[in-house]
């Protein structure tokens, strides 16, 4: 859903990836590659410049990691710089930066310190985002100026001890007390970023609205009686960020602190994460870039066998993979923020794919950097191991990559189901009745998608673009087949979901690269786009082969064996038999 989707706007927003699953290549949504206005670029440049000048002197990621405590002085500095109000609209005392600029800044922050990036991200990206998107004028006036100044650090509180990926099963409850005109909240939230230092929490709780059990969102300030937080968790990484339980014991939340409409809380929780995920992805891109810079510096200087190690092919292969992957991740992130900024576009799949791809790319990149650095890679004095520890969480929070893969695949095929429904007779339950769709209808859809190509592709990219268009069709055809085969049961078929979403991710990445490189050629000529062409082709060659394999494996696989092995192991309670002893 696009931003600010109010209740009642039932017209589904356009989605590039959903259309693609349904066999439509909506090229005009992703070509040309988005570009910020000159004014926005100029502002961003100044913000980055100022941030770097400050960070070079005052943001020591290694020291923060070693101290393993919340960096109070850093946060105070960020407050003075105005960084804690980056995305808050100017009318509420912030800088009103658009999503693209915000993501670019987060990239930079993460180059220096992932803990700091997480603090800012939890504050702006998710903690206060709900007020921005769904808050009433009164709520905005009351809270946003304090958020922008950093006087209220914000946090987002969804997860609970028994409710993680299955967020809708949360147990925290809000009960309306008509006598006191307050909502009374009770419950425990777990692993809340900024928990120990926040003054404002966006809390999701069960509510009974009109006799129905629903979820609503609340603004809970720390000063309310009954609000407390638990001990600081000791973590693998992000050691400078605060992660705590949030306890709500009979907290009387004023009725004016109910966020948006009652009963819409779960939808809000998910929509807030759309932007959160793409900025998280941007942070991961920043971390990856930093590791590339460090690894390349090391590889060029370190000599073994009388040569810089950068000259050995096994090192070259790593460097190339690090750079092409990061190029693709970066291309996806800013294509997605461009889509988001256009408004009226559903970019939920794109932002989930950006998060999955960028977080896994960062992990690969840092792992390669550790390897290139040899023994140094393992030693605390050097930055590599810290980045390794810090970037691991990206695959877990703001929706685990597994859950996001489920989401991507199901949102994709659901849309495909709707598409099929349109063509065939008016079916009531598209997923369960797809089997009855006439061959004719299916053919018609196929016709609509065959031969759809990207327009105006420049010669050096034509082959790659043709591959992308071909595999876009193949994804849709495979998804459609899977849907017809499994019907509603597709919901349980995670092996299929994983392959479809994996292929969709590579495809979106490839299309993002193509758009970026093609736009560069069109605007600056082939000579200045040399690097882009090389990256796009190199990434493309690897990507389409992966996609081909994944789609092939939807029907040709050994999933049955995999299930048996896993079940057997679970039955045995672990590895089992001891071979030697």
């Amino acid at each position: 859903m696009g931003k600010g989707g109010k209740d009642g706007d039932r017209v589904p927003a356009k989605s590039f990836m959903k259309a693609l699953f349904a066999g439509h290549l909506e090229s005009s949504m992703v070509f040309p590659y988005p570009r910020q206005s000159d004014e926005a670029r100029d502002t961003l440049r100044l913000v980055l410049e100022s941030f770097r000048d400050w960070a070079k002197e005052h943001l020591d990621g290694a020291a923060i990691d070693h101290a393993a405590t919340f960096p109070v002085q850093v946060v105070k500095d960020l407050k003075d710089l105005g960084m804690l109000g980056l995305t808050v609209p100017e009318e509420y005392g912030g800088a009103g930066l658009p999503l693209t600029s915000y993501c670019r800044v987060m990239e930079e922050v993460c180059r220096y310190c992932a803990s700091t990036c997480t603090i800012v991200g939890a504050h702006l990206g998710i903690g206060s985002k709900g007020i921005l998107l769904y808050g009433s004028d009164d709520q905005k006036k009351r809270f946003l100026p304090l958020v922008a100044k950093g006087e209220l650090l914000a946090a987002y509180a969804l997860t609970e001890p028994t409710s993680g990926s299955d967020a809708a099963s949360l147990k925290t409850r809000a009960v309306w007390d008509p006598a006191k005109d307050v909502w009374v909240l009770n419950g425990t939230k777990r692993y809340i970023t900024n928990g120990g230092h926040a003054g404002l929490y966006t809390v999701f709780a069960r509510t009974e609205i009109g006799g129905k059990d629903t979820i609503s969102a609340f603004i809970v300030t720390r000063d309310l009686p009954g609000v407390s937080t638990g001990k600081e968790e000791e973590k693998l990484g992000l050691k400078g960020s605060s992660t705590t339980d949030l306890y709500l014991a009979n907290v009387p939340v004023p009725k004016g602190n109910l966020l948006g409409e009652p009963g819409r809380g779960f939808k809000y929780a998910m929509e807030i994460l759309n932007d959160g995920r793409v900025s998280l992805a941007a942070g991961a891109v920043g971390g990856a870039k930093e590791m590339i810079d460090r690894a390349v510096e090391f590889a060029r200087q370190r000599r073994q066998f009388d040569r810089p190690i950068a000259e050995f092919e096994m090192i070259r292969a790593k460097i190339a993979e690090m750079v092409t992957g990061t190029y693709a991740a970066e291309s996806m992130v800013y294509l997605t923020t461009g889509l988001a900024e256009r408004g009226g576009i559903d970019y939920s799949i794109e932002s989930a794919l950006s998060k999955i791809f960028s977080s896994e790319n960062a992990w690969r990149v840092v792992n390669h950097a550790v390897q290139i650095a040899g023994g140094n890679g393992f030693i605390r004095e050097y930055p590599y191991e810290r980045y390794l520890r810090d970037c691991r969480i990206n695959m877990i929070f703001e929706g685990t990559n597994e859950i996001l893969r489920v989401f991507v695949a199901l949102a994709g095929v659901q849309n495909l189901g709707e598409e099929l429904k349109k063509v065939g007779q008016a079916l009531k339950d598209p997923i369960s009745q797809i089997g009855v769709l006439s061959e004719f209808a299916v053919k018609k859809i196929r016709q609509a998608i065959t031969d759809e190509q990207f327009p105006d592709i420049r010669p050096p990219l034509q082959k790659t673009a043709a591959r992308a268009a071909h595999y876009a069709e193949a994804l849709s055809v495979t998804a459609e087949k899977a849907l017809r085969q499994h019907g509603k049961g597709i919901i349980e078929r995670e092996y299929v979901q994983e392959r479809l979403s994996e292929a969709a991710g590579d495809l979106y990445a490839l299309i993002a690269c193509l758009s970026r490189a093609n736009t560069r050629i069109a605007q600056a000529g082939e000579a200045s786009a040399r690097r882009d062409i090389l990256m796009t082709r190199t990434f493309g060659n690897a990507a389409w082969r992966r996609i081909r394999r994944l789609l092939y494996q939807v029907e040709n696989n050994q999933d049955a064996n995999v299930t048996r092995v896993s079940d057997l192991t679970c039955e045995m309670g672990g590895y089992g038999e001891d071979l030697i002893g």
Partner: protein
Amino acid sequence: MKGLVLIKQVPNTDSPFRINSAGTWVDESNLTYVLNDYDRYALEALLRLKDAGAMTEVVALTAGPERASQALRTCLATGADRAIHIKDDALTAAAPLVVARAICAAIKGEAFDLIACGLQADDDNHMQIGGAVARLLDRPCASAAMSLELRDGGTARVERELENNRLQVVDLKLPAVITVQTGINEPRYASLKGIMAAKKKEIRTVTLADLGMGADAIGADGYRTVRLTPPPKGKGAEMLQGPADQVARELLKRIREKTGVI
């Protein structure tokens, strides 16, 4: 009281430096640019006077190509009130005296009580602009200022940094010119608020032609760049390889072994 800070946009020292095909300057195609570091201190020195109420306006001026306006924006975002841009591509290669003449022409009619610039520009290291401007305007000039204090009777007291850890204290009768050394203060960072406010601030643009300086002004002062080359490779030097911290440790070890100083 009005202050003017003379600033320059210079290549970021992290940029890849290659000499251009003509062999006269660096190849600018892969460079990124920043505000000259020394100039940040000069700007800060004036902004502090303004914060203290001693100065009513701080103006930033640069002479350079189109892109140099970015450095002016940085100054405006940091707190300067308005800016003047003498815009001409030829200025990149111009001799210091020509630049100084252009500056004096551009500020004609404005009365600046204190003109400050950085001690030197990180790219060409001329260290001449401040002195040349002072000479052309016939004003006193103190270079390498390490402190600045306005005093009664229209003077500024400046501590100048000399070699061997000495400071020379001088009084300048205003209006005057100073060139600023980096230790003088701790420059502030542009805040988001400043960045947003800068959008509404004025940058006045003038060309060399507007100033009555034709193309022949460049190079008409007997100064011409012949060649730019890397220094000849020294003999007997050993390069320590590896990441900075590793190199530092190795270096420390050798100094210990060879000199016993530490």
